[in-house]
């Protein structure tokens, strides 16, 4: 890890080692006097098989960064790769397919379709792609999140924690290159939060999954391998092997 994360990409050698990369990413909203630079030259790499957390105060651009990395939003300049694919070369349709096949999502709320059962929600990306699910893999995922007995239930019949675990299982189901989690524990009590985070940790450790999580909770960030700190659209700091206290101190230092 470089001490200055904004120059880290200069190495650039091991493309296959990175699940996602961003180089000099700028995202501008509006124009003229109302112009807002949500991302102001961000360069960052997410190595495969690692659990990264992105932290920062409100309006720091952490959600925007995640949306751009995930192909949900277009950037103003710079480049982003998912695996070997340069997102700027993709049309709307290819981008959609990339999200379907290469990216997993866990949002803060409303992760599940109310009309589908838990099992159907887990298989949703596969069903969209009309791909045959890998049964053995799905069984393993379901057992890991501990939802075996809830598979036939509708989201309305599940607790908040269970719903988030279904969402996490869905993100894993298609074995994506990378999973983006946007404040996944934001609406959960501490017990459910811990369960979900442990599950995410295990999927990195046991399945080699790459996860990027945006959070403002130091306890959540402590489950990651490293934490990136974002302020005013720039990556200002990075911490490896974080602890909740360490993260909290760093946040205080950043004036969050």
């Amino acid at each position, binding site marked *: 890890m470089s001490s200055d994360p904004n120059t880290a990409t200069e190495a650039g050698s091991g493309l296959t080692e990175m699940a996602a990369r961003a180089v000099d990413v700028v995202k501008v909203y509006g124009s003229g006097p109302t112009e807002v630079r949500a991302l102001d030259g961000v360069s960052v790499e997410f190595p495969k098989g690692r659990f990264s957390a992105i932290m920062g105060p409100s309006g720091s651009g952490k959600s925007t960064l995640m949306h751009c990395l995930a192909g*949900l939003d277009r950037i103003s300049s710079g480049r982003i790769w998912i695996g070997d694919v340069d997102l700027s070369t993709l049309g709307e349709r290819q981008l959609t397919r990339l999200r379907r096949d290469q990216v997993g999502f866990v949002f803060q709320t409303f992760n599940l*379709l109310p009309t589908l059962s838990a099992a159907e929600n887990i298989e949703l990306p596969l069903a969209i792609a*009309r791909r045959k699910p890998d049964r053995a893999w799905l069984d393993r995922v379901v057992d890991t999140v501990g939802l075996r007995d809830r598979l036939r239930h509708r989201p309305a019949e599940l607790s908040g924690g269970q719903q988030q675990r279904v969402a996490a299982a869905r993100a894993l189901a298609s074995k994506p290159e990378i999973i983006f989690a946007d404040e996944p524990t934001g609406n959960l009590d501490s017990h459910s939060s811990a369960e979900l985070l442990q599950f995410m940790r295990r999927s990195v450790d046991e399945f080699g999954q790459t996860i990027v999580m945006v959070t403002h909770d130091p306890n959540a960030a402590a489950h990651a391998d490293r934490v990136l700190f974002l302020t005013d659209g720039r990556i200002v700091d990075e911490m490896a092997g974080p602890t909740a206290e360490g993260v909290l101190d760093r946040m205080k230092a950043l004036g969050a």
Partner: protein
Amino acid sequence: MLRATLKSLAAHKLRMAMTALAIVLGVSFVAGTYVLTDTMNSVFDDLFATTTKGVDVDVRTRATFEQTQGPEVREPVPAALLERVRQVDGVQAAQGSVSGYAQIVDKAGKPVAPMGPPTLGQSFGPVADLNGGAQLRPGGRLPAGPDQVVMDARTADKSGFRVGDRVRILFEGPPRTFTLVGVVTFGDVDNLGGATLAGFDIPTAQEVLNRRGSFDEIQVVAAEGVGSAELRDRIQAQVGSRYEVLTGQQLAEDTAKSIQRNLSFFTTALLVFAGVALFVGAFLIYNTFSIVVAQRTRELALLRCMGASRRQVLTSVLTESLVVAVLASVLGIGVGILLAIGLRGLFGALGIDLPGGGVTLLPRTIVVSLVVGLLVTLVASLVPALKATRVAPIAALREQLVGERGTLRPGRVIGGGVILAGGFAALLAGLFAKVSNELSLVGLGAALILLGVGVLSPLIARPLSGALGWPMARLRNLPGRLARANAMRNPRRTAATAAALMIGLALVSFVAILGRSLKASTDQVLDRTVSADYQISSSSFQPFSAELAKRLREQPELATVSSVRQGPFKLNGQSRTLFAVDPVAMEQLVDVDVRSGSLRDMAAGGVAVYKDVVADNGWRLGQTIPMEFPRGGVRQVPIKAIYADKTLISTDYLLSLADYQTAYPDQQDVFVLVKAAPGVSPQASRAAVDRAAADFPNVKVQDQAEYKKSVSDQVNQLLTMIYVLLGLAIVIAVVGIVNTLALSIYERVRELGLLRAVGMERAQVRSMVRWEAVIMAVAGAVLGLVIGTFFGWAVVRALRDVGTTVFQVPVGQLLLFVLLAALAGVAAAVLPGRRASRIDVLRALAAE
């Protein structure tokens, strides 16, 4: 509160536009109908004001029959009356006039036969003011002598006739050829409301129009200084109460009124279709407001939290509907005027020239249209508005719960059941019981049944959409599966949307079944009861000359010829219609299943009566019944036969021709039935019939197969017209699907965002919306088909006595309707689908 309401309206322009569209379409149909018929009426008012301009007083016999259909039937006045009128003090000039049937034949030998308006023959006398407002074009003169004729300018121009040309004209009697000596116009128009006119001098008219020694009316010009009302009274005193004496103005009003009576049927028919459109529109409005209230639950609860009373919430929702209703109704009146102008153009294209400048917009049209638009909207939005008042303030704080259960409150189930039962009772009573206003009862019953099914439909919407969506879920994979789940998640919404289409499809399939059954029944009845080889009927809707039957009888190849005439009569004050037949010939040509007596016994006079009528009146064979005819008043006519099969002749009374000839002023045939002599080949007999009919281009000769085909063609033509008129209701229902989808998408925006985020392609989103629309459309179609089939069955049963003996379901056609409904669903999904596929994923995910 008002400001909040208006803001909410402005914020949802699409929703408002869609709701308004349903009202606009329905109201425009109502307004268009009134504008069209009012315009036509005012045209006729003007026309008759023109034709009676020079007439101060008119003398005629009192009408025997106030018919709802067709012209009034009056007995002629004797020619001698003219002298008595002339002697009245204050009469400057009096002139008898005659009018009747005269069919002009064009240069190609084809009759100039407008569809609907009559082909008139009329006398032209020396008193120019009394010739029906006709003015000669320069270069012409009035007819004088037995071979001279004038005609209306439109017919002359259209058929290329010039003064000096020879013109062949058909009459009740033999056809004749005349020399055209003049062309006439009427004020600023060139024809009489589409009718053709041939004018003759008075003696010729009396001869060819079958009025020897009599006139239809006597018209009078008053002397200088004598008021027409005063002169009328003097003439009335002179001629006695047997005659009706009117001023010219009264005559114009009276004539216009009798035309208006004929038009009123047309008005009613169009208004029925307008009513269907509004009924469907009401479902759409109800559904839209229900969804809107559900989506605004939070907002309404917040208002309640802040102290808004229930009444204020109610007012808020009703105000929204009121604003929409007023705007839409006003717009509907505008569209209705355009519709009327368009229809008038259509009439022009059909040869019915409706002259006169602008359209007639009566205050009544505006009032009725506004009231109907407002009432339908308010009634339809009342239930959702009341539901809005039941939103508890605490709902504002709860997590929003969109979606509902499939269960209905018991009150609604009971209410729906009561409506449905009432509908069945009214329908069946109207069809099978003996009641006076059966048509309105049947209509009410049908409407209640549709409403009842609409109210109860949420009960079956979930299983029905599930079943219909099953193949889609299998075939279309995920989009199909989600479409099915979406259609099933709000049974009430799906049901109300489908119900709108159900109404249209129920009526369409009912009409299709009725049409098919009529055709099949006709075929069967003809095979069973008719042994005639040929049937001769009018090619326009006018009866034709009795001369034809006479010529047919002269052909040696033809064994039996039976004329059939039609006419009105009164029995105990009630108007009835009879057919007159040659009893001996009839017996050989048509089997009416005589139960007692014999048609043959009627040869010297008498009537045959249908068995149920005999039973209802407690009559018996041999007794006389008091029949009042246009000529000669009440006569005691003996019942000579009782018959049990009226499927072909569709009348309760068969009079002998002998009686008919003395009881009616005009002797024209509506049908002639012909049977070939034994051993004559079909070719030879056909040639004989064609030979006899050669002089009568206004009739068509058909053998049984051709007749069956012509009935089938007529039914098809009628069906097409009804389909077109019902099309409006179906368009509204499709708009309803668009509306429901648009509102659903608005409320499912987060789901759509999620689906797009995890990789659903736009095409798949569109596909999902499309299949949901198809499920709703097909669900409505299937329900409609079931109800329509029931309606068809019930009505066919009820019409069994009058010839609809076969109940036949056009399965292929009904399946086609379902397919078309599915396609309509696909079309309805285009815009909402595009909208759903283009949502901004990030904003959708962030949406509350």
